[in-house]
C-alpha cells in the first residue's frame, strides 16, 4: 500500500502544536534537580534505597513506553516483558562477544527492540483490539521459548553478570544505575510528552477513538501505529538493558516475568492513559506501594496490591489519577 509514488503535498508532514515547550523544559529541569540530588545524597543513604528507586524509575520508563501505543493509540500490548527481555539479553550477548560501556549497550538494545517492535507491528497491527493484544502476548512467549533453548545466553539455567568497576564520581554501582535510569526516565517522559502534543499524538488519539473515521480524515493509521510500536519497543528495550547489572543474575523467568507485563499496564491505567504524566504518577504510586509492602509485609504482597488497585481504579476511576484531578479542577471552576 505504501508502494505508491507520493506527490509533494502528500508527503508534507503536519507540524507539531506550538507554544507548549515550557512543559518539556520543566520535565528536564525537574530531572536535573533529581539527578543532582542523587549525586549529593551519595553514601548518605543506604544501598537499598537506590535499588528501590531504580525499580520505580524502571517502571516509569516501561509504563511511559507502554502508554505511547496503549494509552495514546488504544492498542493494548501484553508483551512488554518480551521487549524488556530483548534489552536484557542484548546486554548479555554484547557482554559475551563485544563488551562495551552500558550506555552503548542501551543504544543497541533500543535499536534491537525497536526493530522487533516495528516488525511485530507490521505483522500484527492489522489486527484490531483483543486480537492484537493476544498476538503481543504470543510474541513474548515465542521469545521466551527461544531464550530458554539458547544455551549461549544461559538457557533456562540463567546467566551471571559481573558488574564492571564504577567511575569514581559514583559512590556505588547502585547509585550509578539510579542516575542512568533517571536519565532514561526523563528521556522517555520527554519523548512521550512530545509525541502527545505533536501530530503523531493527535493522529493516535483519532485512531484510538475510531480507526476507520481517522483513516477517512486523512490519518495514515498504519504508519502512525508503526511509529508508536517502534518507539514504545525501543524504550522498553532500553529499560531492560541495565537490568542484568541490577540483578547480576538473569534467567528467562525473571526477564520475562509476569510482574513486568502486569505493572507496565497497571501503572498507566492507575495513573491515567490520556496524558504523559499519568504513567509517571501510576509508576510512583504503585511502585512505592510495592516497595513498602515488600519490606513491611512480604514480597508476595507485591503483585497483590497491583491487583487490588487495578480493580479499584478500573471500577471507580477508569480515567485514573489524571481523570480524578481533571474532574476536581472542573468542579472548582
Amino acid at each position: 500500500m505504501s508502494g505508491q509514488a507520493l506527490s509533494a503535498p502528500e508527503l508534507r508532514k503536519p507540524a507539531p502544536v506550538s507554544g507548549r515547550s515550557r512543559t518539556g523544559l520543566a520535565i528536564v529541569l525537574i530531572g536535573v534537580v533529581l539527578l543532582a540530588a542523587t549525586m549529593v545524597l551519595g553514601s548518605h543513604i543506604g544501598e537499598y534505597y537506590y535499588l528501590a528507586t531504580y525499580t520505580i524509575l524502571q517502571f516509569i520508563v516501561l509504563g511511559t513506553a507502554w502508554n505511547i501505543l496503549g494509552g495514546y493509540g488504544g492498542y493494548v500490548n501484553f508483551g512488554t516483558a518480551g521487549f524488556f527481555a530483548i534489552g536484557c539479553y542484548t546486554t548479555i550477548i554484547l557482554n559475551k562477544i563485544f563488551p562495551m560501556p552500558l550506555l552503548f549497550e542501551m543504544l543497541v538494545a533500543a535499536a534491537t527492540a525497536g526493530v522487533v517492535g516495528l516488525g511485530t507491528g507490521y505483522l500484527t497491527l492489522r489486527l484490531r483490539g483483543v486480537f492484537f493484544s493476544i498476538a503481543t502476548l504470543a510474541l513474548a512467549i515465542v521469545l521466551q521459548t527461544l531464550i530458554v533453548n539458547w544455551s549461549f545466553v544461559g538457557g533456562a539455567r540463567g546467566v551471571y553478570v559481573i558488574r564492571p568497576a564504577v567511575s569514581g564520581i559514583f559512590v556505588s554501582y547502585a547509585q550509578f544505575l539510579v542516575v542512568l535510569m533517571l536519565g532514561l526516565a526523563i528521556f522517555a517522559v520527554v519523548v512521550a510528552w512530545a509525541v502527545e502534543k505533536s501530530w503523531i499524538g493527535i493522529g493516535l488519539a483519532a485512531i484510538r477513538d475510531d480507526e476507520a473515521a481517522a483513516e477517512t480524515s486523512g490519518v495514515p493509521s498504519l504508519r502512525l501505529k508503526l511509529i508508536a510500536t517502534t518507539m514504545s519497543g525501543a524504550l522498553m528495550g532500553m529499560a531492560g538493558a541495565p537490568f542484568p547489572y541490577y540483578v547480576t543474575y538473569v534467567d528467562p523467568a525473571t526477564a520475562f516475568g509476569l510482574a513486568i507485563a502486569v505493572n507496565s499496564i497497571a501503572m498507566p491505567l492507575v495513573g491515567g492513559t490520556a496524558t504523559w504524566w499519568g504513567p509517571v504518577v501510576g509508576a510512583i504510586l504503585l511502585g512505592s506501594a510495592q516497595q513498602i509492602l515488600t519490606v513491611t509485609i512480604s514480597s508476595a504482597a507485591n503483585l497483590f496490591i497491583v491487583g487490588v488497585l487495578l480493580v479499584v481504579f478500573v471500577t471507580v476511576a477508569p480515567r485514573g489519577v489524571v481523570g480524578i484531578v481533571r474532574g476536581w479542577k472542573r468542579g472548582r471552576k
Partner: protein
Amino acid sequence: MIAKILEATGVTKRFDGFAALTSVDFTLLKGERVGLIGPNGSGKSTFVNCLTGILAPDDGSIIFDGNDITKTPAWLRARRGLARTYQIPRPFRGMTVQENIEVPLRFAVGHTSAGTISEAAQVILDQVGLGEKADLSPKGLTQVELRKLELGRALAAQPKVLIADEVMAGLSESEVDEILALLNRLNAEGISILLIEHIMRAVMLFAQRIVVIVAGSKIADGLPDEVMQQEDVERAYLGE
C-alpha cells in the same frame, strides 16, 4: 464534455461467497449531484466503502481525478480529496467538537499552524451550524448535531468529491431542507456530491441523476423522473 471526477468500473465485492456487489459501474462528473438509492442491504454502503478505501474490492477499478486509486489506502484518498460521512455517526469521542474538525484539517488538508487550523475549524463549524458547540464533547450532541458533525468533518478535508451516506436519516423536514441547502451551496462551490439517501423527497429535490442498486447490481442510472418510472425500480421499492 464535462470531465469525470470519479469512475468505478466493474466493482465486485464478495463476503464469504455472498456477492455484496456484482460488477457495478458508476461515474460522477465534475460538479455533478448524483443520488444513490436502493433498498436496505442492497450494497450501497459496501459500494461507498469500496470507493473510499475502507474495503478493498475483489475486482474492478476506481479512477479518481485521473488517478487509479483502486489500491490506494483510505487516508491517501481522503488527502487527495475524496471525503465521506458515515451512516452511523462516528465522532472521535475523546475530543471536543472542534478538535474533531481539526483532525482532517491537519491530516487531510495538511495545515500546520495551530492558529490557521483553529480558524478554519470555526468557519466550518459555523457553516454546519455547530459554532456554539465547538467546545462540547460529541457525547453531548443530539443525533441531528452528530450528523452535522459528520458532514463538517468531511468538509474540513476540503474534498473534490463528497459522499454523504444518509446524512438526513431521522431529521425533521425543516432540518432536511437545511442540510439540502448546505449541500447545494457546497455543490455551487464546485464540490461533486454523491448522496446516498432513503428520503426520496430529498433525493428528487437534490439529484441531477439517480443511480439505483438492488441486490448488489446497478439496475438503473439516469434522470430522476425517468428512473423512478422504470418498472424494475418500482418493483424493487414497492414490490410486485
